């Protein structure tokens, strides 16, 4: 197998051409390398907490190394809760984690204040990194700013289990925390949009693996909708990601008018396409753990092709992606393989070529097993 190291087009040229219905070198693809860019750039993950320049340069290094189609400013799920008073742990060379929620005594929930993106926590570092990124690669690749959804942020303000209990015991408190989170996330995203980025939303706590569709509709969806509406008012489409199973809320999400929805590997692209493929673009869902982190390149190739087979004819578009952010230590050769697979396939997708590539890969996997 030959390994093309360079694409013929930049991600921006490719996206523009596809939007015009033209033929391009390959379909866009996003392996979703998160803090793994530190491994490409050669820095400690904790440097992202303090140095905007390092954060930006590592993102650029990851983009140049693999050639994927989107760059995102995302270090972990907690910068916004932290900016509102939560404590986090910052391991020297691993992803930041939540240590204590912002509100110690649940009765004090009204004391929470919206964040100031230019002042609080690590947010100024993120905003500065965005400027470096726009200067560095802004004319060739789309750059996005990650935020979490209001419900997920509320969970980190009061503690996950407290919020889940309060959905029954103190609904007003949950609504209040979601509202303050909404204002905060808009303030941060607006700052990012002013710099020239588009937003993406991760909303893991809204997963049907955790809460019922009923709770989702009451506490999470109204705020997500306002967030999406706000971005639309600023002419920004938004891609949303929810981990875990989401089939029972797909229609709610599509009806919010998101530009794309990225699904976890436990959900099915095929089914998602049938349900909401005519309303929004679908992204996903190679297993970030079992396949990307632990699998062989041939397994990655097979899984990537499988996703494309299920999704490529989705009416509003499809992009192969991992089901969630990749583990930091994901082997480079697997990330390369995901990209090389779409390079070899080309675009528009030729179903016969796709089947042929799948057969070849299957044979390769057989050999691997033997």
């Amino acid at each position, binding site marked *: 197998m030959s390994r093309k190291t360079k694409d013929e087009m930049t991600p921006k040229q490719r996206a523009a051409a596809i939007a015009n219905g033209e033929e391009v070198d390959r379909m866009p693809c996003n392996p979703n390398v998160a803090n793994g860019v530190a491994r490409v750039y050669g820095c400690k993950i904790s440097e992202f907490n303090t140095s905007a320049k390092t954060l930006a340069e590592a993102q650029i290094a990851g983009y140049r190394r693999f050639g994927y189609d989107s760059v995102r400013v995302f270090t972990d799920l907690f910068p916004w809760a932290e900016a509102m008073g939560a404590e986090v742990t910052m391991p020297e060379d691993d992803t930041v984690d939540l240590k204590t929620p912002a509100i110690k005594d649940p009765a004090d929930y009204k004391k929470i204040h919206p964040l100031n993106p230019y002042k609080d926590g690590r947010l100024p570092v993120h905003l500065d990194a965005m400027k470096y990124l726009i200067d560095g690669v802004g004319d060739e690749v789309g750059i996005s700013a990650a935020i979490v959804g209001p419900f997920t942020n509320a969970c980190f303000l009061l503690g996950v*289990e407290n919020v889940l*209990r309060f959905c029954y015991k103190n609904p007003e408190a949950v609504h209040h925390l979601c509202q303050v989170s909404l204002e905060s996330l808009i303030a941060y995203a607006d700052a990012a949009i002013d710099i020239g980025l588009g937003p993406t939303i991760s909303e893991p706590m809204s997963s049907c693996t955790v809460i*019922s569709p009923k709770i989702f509709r009451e506490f999470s969806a109204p705020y997500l909708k306002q967030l999406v509406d706000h971005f639309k008012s600023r002419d920004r489409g938004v891609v949303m990601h929810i981990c875990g199973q989401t089939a029972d809320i797909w229609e709610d999400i599509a009806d919010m008018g998101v530009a794309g929805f990225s699904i976890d590997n436990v959900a099915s692209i095929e089914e998602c396409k049938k349900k909401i493929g005519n309303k929004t673009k679908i992204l996903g869902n190679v297993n970030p*753990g079992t396949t990307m982190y632990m699998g062989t390149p041939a397994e990655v190739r097979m899984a990537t092709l499988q996703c494309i087979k299920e999704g490529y004819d989705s009416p509003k578009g499809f992009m192969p992606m991992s089901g969630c952010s990749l*583990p930091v230590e994901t082997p480079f050769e697997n990330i390369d393989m995901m990209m090389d697979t779409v390079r070899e396939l080309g675009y528009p997708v030729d179903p016969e070529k796709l089947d042929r590539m799948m057969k070849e890969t299957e044979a390769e996997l057989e050999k691997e097993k033997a």
Partner: protein
Amino acid sequence: MARSKEELIAAMGNAVLEMEDEEAAALAEEYVEAGYDAMEGLTEGLAKGMNRAGELYEEKEYFIPELLLCSDAFYGAVDVLRPHIQKKTDSGEQMTAVIGVVEGDTHDIGKNILKIMLETEGFDVYDLGKDVPTQNFIDAAREHNADFIGMSTLMTTTMIKMSEIIQELKNNGLRDRVVVMVGGGPISEAYADKIGADGYEPDAASAARRARELVLAHRS
């Protein structure tokens, strides 16, 4: 009019299932005041209600918030009954579990549910929390003379820790003394076999039932 034992037992189970914490505690008070057997109220009433909640969760009728509230109602009422439960003289039924989320992983919702279900099945549970270093599992197993160790992880990147813990149990001569179960998203029966665990279950309710069976079988 005083309610019969059976009526109260059924009502306590229902209150747990319906997430009625105050109701469950009030019923437990009434039950104790009537002089009925506290142990029976626990096992036949409260625990059955909690088991049923676990089943509804398996059936995707209940989700995490509902399970947490059922468990709050369960524990609130257990606190009322506990002082009245006659300590068993033979500790033959006493089962001790040590559980935790392995090092590097902080997903603890599933582990917390497992704790509740193990307690419902009659285990004394020592919960080591999340992101637990391997050595802590070994120390806790020894210190509490555990019958059962339950390890949880939701991340492929930290699965390897489970096999490390089992190896350390062997190195410390403890492996044959405990039943080991593993669980969480990326774990499977096949993986459990591969690393030499005694069992795996996909959800906490069946995990706790299986844990009980395995511990009792291990003893005889």
